[in-house]
């Protein structure tokens, strides 16, 4: 009987050997294995969602692809690990993923107590409420006595508690593990209200039986800056994550798109030249080649392209730029300059 154990031990040994060997920095590890392991959600349309063929798309997915483009010049050198809300931080802490790009809200406790660093904000979100139109509710302040469906283990659960408590409104919370279960329960009429990040409400509304019967209330009750997360203590990798996002934003600001990036390389604008590596050695300073940002824009696009392709007005989600527009167009998106 003990012979049976042999192939399994063999298999186990192979499984361990195939994963990363202990290395000094994340960048070295990533370069050694040839791809970036990226933690994403288990399926949130517009942010990270697999299609029927298993290809991942979304705003968060594009950020990982952009990092792969920056490191390898190849946006496909990335593998995705779907993570539940519960697993996401330990997966990053333990080194199972190199970067977590999973609509994760930047909060002080997460930034300081979990050994993690937030590399920026790729989507400014806020928590909203969705209700049935026939309830006749126009403001969230009329929701006293409502039962509220939401996801467990997220900041939304805490925000909704704060909101109802501070407005002295009784409520009943029904918190589910997975977004799909929340939608199913809300659709069945278990709850009067569905609350999550506003972007999520638009995404999940598509899954309801009659999306037209539901409306998203105008109130936004929280700040939800969503962004990529890396491990604390590896500043080089932290910089790469931070500046990948900044490069996408700067590219949009400077009008560099995946279509015109080759022409723009010859541009006279010194900002563009610095961004695309025609001038200075900014890429080398973060451990990459100087055409890192060129690769990002060429392979993935700038922030605007990514936004419009995944969540923008022409997608089923139909979210307008709003606060996610660039700072000079009325939004919050402001990337430090490359210089």
């Amino acid at each position, binding site marked *: 009987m003990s012979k049976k154990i042999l192939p399994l031990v063999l298999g186990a040994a192979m499984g361990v050997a195939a994963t990363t060997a202990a290395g000094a920095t994340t960048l070295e590890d990533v370069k050694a294995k040839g791809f970036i392991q990226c933690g994403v959600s288990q399926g949130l349309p517009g942010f990270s969602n697999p299609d029927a063929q298993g290809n991942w798309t979304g705003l968060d997915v594009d950020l990982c692809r952009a990092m792969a483009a920056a490191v390898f010049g190849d946006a496909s050198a990335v593998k995705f690990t779907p993570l539940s809300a519960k697993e996401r931080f330990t997966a990053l802490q333990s080194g199972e993923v190199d970067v977590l790009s999973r609509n994760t809200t930047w909060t002080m406790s997460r930034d300081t107590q979990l*050994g993690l660093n937030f590399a920026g904000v790729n989507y400014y979100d806020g928590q909203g409420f969705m209700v049935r139109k026939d*309830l*006749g509710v126009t403001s969230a302040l009329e929701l006293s006595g409502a039962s509220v469906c939401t996801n467990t283990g997220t900041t939304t659960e*805490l925000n909704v508690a*704060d909101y109802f408590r501070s407005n002295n409104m009784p409520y009943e919370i029904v*918190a589910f*593990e997975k977004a799909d279960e929340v939608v199913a329960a809300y659709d*069945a009429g*278990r709850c009067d209200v569905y609350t999550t990040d506003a972007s999520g409400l638009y995404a999940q509304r598509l899954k309801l039986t009659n999306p037209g019967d539901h409306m998203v209330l105008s109130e936004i009750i929280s700040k939800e800056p969503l962004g990529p997360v890396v491990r604390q203590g590896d500043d080089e990798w932290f910089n790469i994550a931070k500046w990948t996002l900044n490069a996408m934003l700067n590219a949009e600001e400077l009008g560099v798109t995946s279509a015109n990036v080759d022409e723009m390389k010859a541009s006279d604008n010194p900002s563009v030249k610095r961004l695309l590596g025609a001038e200075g050695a900014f890429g080398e300073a973060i451990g990459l080649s100087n055409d890192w940002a060129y690769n990002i824009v060429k392979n993935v696009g700038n922030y605007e392209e990514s936004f419009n392709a995944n969540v923008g007005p022409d997608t089923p989600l139909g979210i307008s730029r709003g606060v996610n527009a660039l700072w000079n167009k009325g939004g919050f998106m402001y990337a430090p300059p490359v210089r």
Partner: protein
Amino acid sequence: MSVMEQDSAGAPARASLMNDPKVRSIFYQLVLVVAVVALGYFIVSNTITNLERQNIASGWGFLENTAGFGTNQSLVEYSETSSYGRALYVGFLNTLLVAAVGIFFATLLGFIIGIARLSNNWVINRLAYCYVELVRNIPLLLQIFFWYFAVLRAIPGKREKWSIFDTFHLNIGGMRLPKPIWEPGSEWVGYALIIGIIASYFVSRWARKRQENTGQQFPVFWSAMGLIVGIPIITYFVTGMPMTLEHPNFVESGPILRQGFELNVGINVIPEFLALTAALSIYTASFIAEIVRAGIQAVSHGQTEAAHALGLRNGPTLRLVIIPQAMRVIIPPLTSQYLNLTKNSSLAVAIAYPDLVSMGGTVLNQTGQAIEIIGIWMAVYLSLSLITSAFMNWYNQRMALVER
């Protein structure tokens, strides 16, 4: 795991001492102890280094912090300002509740189905057979989803209700019952209940003695029921009815959102609880039914024939002859089914029932204290298991003593 293999691998090393079984056994055990300690040391030291490297603060201090999240069912006082420790306690009580109610219904249903499996009536027999084969071959998680999501769509919405006697109401928000409000003086009813239970214990002892001595039977069941139910009821009326019922309030006018049952009036049994209890009871009942059938079949047919020959009818034969003997066969596997049900209640995490795993998961997410939370989970379930099996072993021994 590899530890167990070592005692075969290490054997031929010392030929001279090998022939002494005592030395050999001490050697094996030493190897095992060293291996276990080494493994333990390896795990603990790695964990400590990993935690330090990742700047994760470990310890139990987080239990005191404010939880900040609400819940839809708590048996004790709980609000968003309570601590994480309190939240875990609420989850623990919810686990106990669903396990206790689930065990009750699973036993009831399981015995009915198990006896139906042996019925002479072909339709009943086949139905019970189909029930068992259908239910126990489908994963429990799937059944929980079915009860929660499929059945949820079939019951009336928030602004409607099904009512029985205008006292029990059911809609998608849950089952509403009147809530007893105890007023001063009602503690006497509680005392009366305790007195009733103690009195019926002595009555049953006296009755057994009398039957053993004289052969005369005494209606123990009915007199005990009379004592346990009757004394508190008399006390209730004597003390001037110190209890009122708070009926659920069904609002039918005003804004649509406010219509339906008012929050926090009467008792609300949440649908998550109903679905989980239904799934757990129905699933476990299919296993209990098989255990009961096997137990009854294990009692030799001669017992039935002898009882019939003594003039006992079918009912008393089953109750007085077959079941007591079958119980000895039934109890050990029944215990493990109870334990399974308790452990399976952790699947509550899939629907929004706030049990220990679900509440713990939320705390884990807010605080990131994975090791502590998983430690609490394991410790709680392990103690529940050990307590239940200790109790059932004790009970089993008592039952076994009947055999002379």
